[in-house]
């Protein structure tokens, strides 16, 4: 995902001199093509995330399209007030890129885990929150971020995510992407963990439970129409994200579902429990500790269907 992003960004920057990429001393080797071809469009501001974000707002207010780049917590929480005031309040056209969503930097420990970013970015007026599932969505999300006028937060994996799309989908900000159809249950997921939702759907299908899988690469603004269709057409809707259950995709879907009148499916939120990791481990290990696994999702869906 990270490679797809940097390649697309280098390509876009070459044809659009308004694009300028700022990093807070991260991304070793990733921006070489960009910095060689367009040396004026790349600045390492040093280990100074707040300053990077403030500078991006200043550059944006002159008509440029700045990207800020760091590991998720440092691109978002470390400089949150600069994002809130300098970027969002002034509606500055800044694109904030956080790499390593969820537990992608697992063994690096809790300071490097990207588990609250979607929530805090979603809470900001004027902010668009993009969370692609695979390298193809990351490429399309990067293009969409440049084309969009206004602040965007782009939440990326670290690398090595499987490709989930056979061909590029119709990617539009604010629209979910249906990856497979099914009548009984719906799984709505965002980010690289969409692959786990697809695995769960295959297992459910084998047990006769037709399961729709939606990739939701835009967490904000949410595709409310698609959520409404899902809660009306399915018997159960399960959301899945590698992010705290407080305030992310699951919360957004639940908020939307609560506003829909009439008979609707129950919504179950799968995500990281409201706690910090205190055990060291890689991404797969920490997902397992938090129950973000295919088997747990399958069991939860079977459980709801059996009791409803």
């Amino acid at each position, binding site marked *: 995902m990270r490679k797809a992003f940097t390649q697309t960004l280098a390509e876009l920057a070459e044809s659009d001199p308004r694009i300028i990429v700022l990093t807070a001393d991260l991304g*070793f080797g990733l921006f070489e093509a960009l910095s060689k071809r367009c040396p004026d469009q790349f600045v390492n501001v040093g280990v*100074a995330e707040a300053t990077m974000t403030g500078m991006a707002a200043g550059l944006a207010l002159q008509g440029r399209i700045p990207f800020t780049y760091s590991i998720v917590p440092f691109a978002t929480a470390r400089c949150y007030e600069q994002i809130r005031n300098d970027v969002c309040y002034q509606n500055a056209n800044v694109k904030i890129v956080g790499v390593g969503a969820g537990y992608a930097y697992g063994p690096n*420990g809790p300071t490097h885990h990207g588990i609250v970013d979607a929530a805090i970015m979603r809470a900001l007026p004027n902010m668009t929150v993009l969370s692609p599932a695979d390298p193809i969505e990351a490429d399309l999300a990067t293009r969409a971020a440049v084309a969009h006028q206004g602040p965007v937060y782009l939440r990326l994996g670290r690398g090595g995510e499987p490709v989930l799309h056979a061909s590029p989908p119709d990617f539009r900000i604010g629209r979910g992407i249906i990856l497979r159809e099914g009548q009984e249950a719906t799984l709505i997921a965002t980010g690289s963990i969409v692959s786990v939702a697809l695995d769960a759907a295959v297992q459910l299908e084998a047990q006769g439970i037709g399961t729709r899988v939606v990739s939701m690469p835009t967490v904000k603004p949410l595709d409310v129409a698609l959520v409404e269709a899902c809660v009306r057409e399915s018997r159960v809707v399960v959301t899945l994200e590698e992010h705290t259950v407080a305030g992310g995709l699951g919360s957004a879907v639940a908020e939307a579902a609560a506003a829909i009148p009439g008979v609707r499916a129950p919504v179950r939120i799968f995500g990281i429990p409201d706690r910090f990791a205190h055990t060291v481990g*890689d991404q797969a290990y920490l997902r397992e500790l938090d129950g973000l696994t295919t088997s747990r999702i399958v069991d939860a869906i079977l459980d709801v269907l059996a009791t409803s």
Partner: protein
Amino acid sequence: MTDIHPLQYTATQIRRRVVTMAARGKTPHIGSALSSVEILAALYFHALHQDPANPELPGRDYFVLSKGHGCMAWYATLAQRGYFSNEVLETYALNGSCLGEHPSRHCAPGIEFTTGSLGHGLALGAGLALGARLSGSRSRAFVLLSDGECEEGSIWEAAMVGAHHKLDNLVAIVDYNKIQAMGRTHDISAVAPLSDKWQAFGWAIREVEGHDVGAVVEVLDKVPFAPGKPSVIVAHTVKGRGVSFMEDDVLWHYKSPDESELAAALAELD
């Protein structure tokens, strides 16, 4: 005079542990760990008022590894000093371990503060130093910073307030290895002249050759350098110090040694 030979031996033992940990855990930041070794050896085997048998010792000195990514050297030092066992150290960065690639509070004995996001440690240290003074304790707070980290504005906020409150029980040590994640520090931002900056912020300064463990011991014995002022030690170091092919090379901010590189490193650290 302190006999420094045991400390030099200790530093080599710490380095052997560090290269082994990085190889086993396949983790980065070995260069950042190796540049801090003499500083940590001088602190833990000479300067700090602490007791490995009683990590909660009342009135102890505090240590904050603000450059949390250098934690391999800290973990190795703590194990060498007896805070926890080699068996614990050997789990470093493996699934199910308590020792991550950045330190977490109470993940093992002697580790009191969570770090890993740069620019936090000096304020934490200023709070510890202020708290110690308020409660009449003789505790001191030692904070180990990296030079790249000094690009964070929060370092200079804490520097200002530490001087204003005359926290002469606060000691910052800058591991000035002159390389940060994306290249040479002086190619990225105007960190230099570093000592002049600290002086302008009201700190008492000493510069030291950071791999001369005797010199580090000597300077640590002199804190506070001036009454009523916080102290900073600008330690000139070399990233990757001790392993010839790792020295002064940004690539060893990322690489971990393979089997033959580990053998070559251990052969040099004999």
